[in-house]
């Protein structure tokens, strides 16, 4: 087990380096520079700028410096937000995005697992069909359509909830963004739970459990749920990667000062240290999260040994 974690962490580091190098390469290969903006800059100032940011050095020196920064987890200073270190920006924006993502995933798990289990137990009933059609709608309705529509209904028409802006935790401002972000995952998890449960409910060991005289509740909760949720557990890894993309959209719609908003601005402003910092941070957290999921897998399924 310990060896497994260690091995996985060792693989993680090159993975992060690869993703970040790819990003760095893209930035460097792109035409133009962060300072080539609207107006022409005199050559003397350009030379100064290049020296200041180390752009006069050969590429491998710059690349080495970037990698070294990642290894010590210090990503330097933002170009756009002058005087602010990338780390301080991360520290400020992460809580916003993490709150949003975490709450959304919790909600999705709760609603999705409940709906999926009920649909599986009542397979081919009207309830099953309607909840699965709703889930399909959840998958098909892009969050940038759902979000504004929710705002239109609940904020601008009914005046029940504030339309936008971060209001800390907990606050009413979180309700619409969290629902918007979690809709897709709710839908996916409901579908995964349903099919996972359907498969497990047909398993021989469920028949054994029934033959023991257990109540339907005990059969489902004690015997079936665990196996039925395996697909949901394995979906958690990929879901996180998508959750981050979703956060970018939701933060944009609801004007949240989160990681996603800063990432978008950094891309638009060609703020290289900030982009690298955010990409590296996201890659590291996604990979670590995946590792946690794999470990959890081992706890849930005793047949898996590392």
């Amino acid at each position, binding site marked *: 087990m310990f060896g497994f974690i260690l091995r996985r962490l060792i693989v993680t580091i090159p993975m992060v380096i690869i993703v970040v190098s790819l990003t760095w390469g893209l930035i460097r290969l792109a035409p133009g520079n962060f300072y080539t903006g609207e107006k022409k800059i005199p050559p003397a100032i350009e030379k100064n700028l290049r020296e200041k940011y180390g752009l006069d050095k050969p590429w491998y020196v710059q690349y080495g410096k970037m990698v070294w920064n990642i290894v010590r987890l210090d990503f330097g200073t933002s170009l756009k937000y002058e005087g602010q270190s990338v780390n301080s920006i991360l520290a400020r924006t992460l809580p916003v995005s993490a709150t949003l993502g975490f709450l959304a995933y919790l909600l999705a798990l709760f609603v999705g697992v409940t709906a999926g289990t009920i649909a599986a137990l009542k397979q081919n009933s009207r309830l099953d069909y309607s909840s699965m059609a709703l889930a399909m709608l959840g998958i098909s309705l892009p969050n940038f359509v759902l979000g504004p529509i929710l705002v239109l209904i609940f904020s601008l028409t009914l005046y029940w909830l504030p339309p936008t802006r971060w209001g800390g935790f907990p606050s009413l401002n979180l309700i619409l963004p969290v629902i918007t972000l979690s809709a897709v995952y709710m839908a996916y998890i409901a579908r995964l739970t349903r099919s996972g449960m359907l498969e497990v409910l047909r398993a021989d060991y469920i*028949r054994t459990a029934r033959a023991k005289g257990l109540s339907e509740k005990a059969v489902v909760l004690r015997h079936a749920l665990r196996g039925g949720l395996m697909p949901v557990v394995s979906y958690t890894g990929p879901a996180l990667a998508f959750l981050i993309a979703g956060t970018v959209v939701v933060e944009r719609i609801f004007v949240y000062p989160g990681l996603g908003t800063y990432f978008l601005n950094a891309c638009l402003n060609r703020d290289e240290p900030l982009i690298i910092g955010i990409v590296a941070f996201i890659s590291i957290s996604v990979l670590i999260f995946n590792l946690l999921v794999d470990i959890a897998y081992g706890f849930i399924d005793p047949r898996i040994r590392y």
Partner: protein
Amino acid sequence: MNGRNGNILEVRDLRTYFQTEDGTVKAVDGVDFELKRGETLGIVGESGSGKSVTNLSIIRLIPDPPGKIVSGEIIFDGQDILLLKTEEVRKIRGKRIAMIFQDPMTSLNPFMRISRQLMELTELHLGYTRDQAYEHAIKMLETVGIPDARSRVDSYPHEFSGGMRQRVMIAMALSCEPELLIADEPTTALDVTIQAQILELIKSLKQETGTSVILITHDLGVVAGMTDHIIVMYAGKVFEQARTRELFATPGNPYTKGLLRSVPDPTSEQGALYQIPGLPPDVAHLPPGCPFAERCERAEDICRREFPPFVALTPDHHSLCHFAEEVYSTSKREREARAGARSQEQVLDLE
């Protein structure tokens, strides 16, 4: 107390149908049998003959939909199980009627410790506390011959071999000292050497506890030494029923004869094994006549046209065949002709 005339179980005209895209599958279509307290009944048939569905029907474990018990009576200890409420059936399942399934690899919950799976039963049905149930679980594992039971009781199923898992299944089934044990192909998924051990175990436990047993199998060799009575099923119907000794000695149905011929006989010199030609029929689209007619050596026109009668050859020996009497008397003659032959002796001595 013992229900009517000492029978622990009477099944009357049981019909269990499945709705499929292909039409209605009459998996069990009018099955009758009874089992006396303390006796062992063998149900023999090819796959698809309805023998497992019959037994799942007894404890009402037919998945509905697509399956449904359409009609019949299942009288267990004087009570018709089909008339009971679900909760009442649950009190019978696992406590008074226990089942052992075919594949021990998949029949135990892979996510749960063996101890938990055993304790569940006694906690539920006998009201044991955790500690009592735990001790009982260990005792049961010892009873079924699992060495070092105390240290292995907390293992997960995948840490056991196939034979050991089947022993666990048996321990589980016998936890509440059931009055009826249904063993559905308990040895099919196991290695040949393990098969013998498991059968021996069931036999000896049955003798100790006095439980009645239904043993479902496709292998006549398995039932020969274990049962008092045998019913042979084909295409959802009982083709023949008789005392074990009688059935082996003088079968009254061509299908049973075919089955007996396909049992390898170590003393015979013939090289190739006999095999009934053809495949079991598609139960969703049965012809009007005898379902076995297509594969039967004795079949005549009437067999394809008319459904055969269930002929009583003796009060305790019935056969579903237009020519039951004829087949029966042929069997008798053959038996007399070979009376001294060693191979026949062996079959008879098995009882």
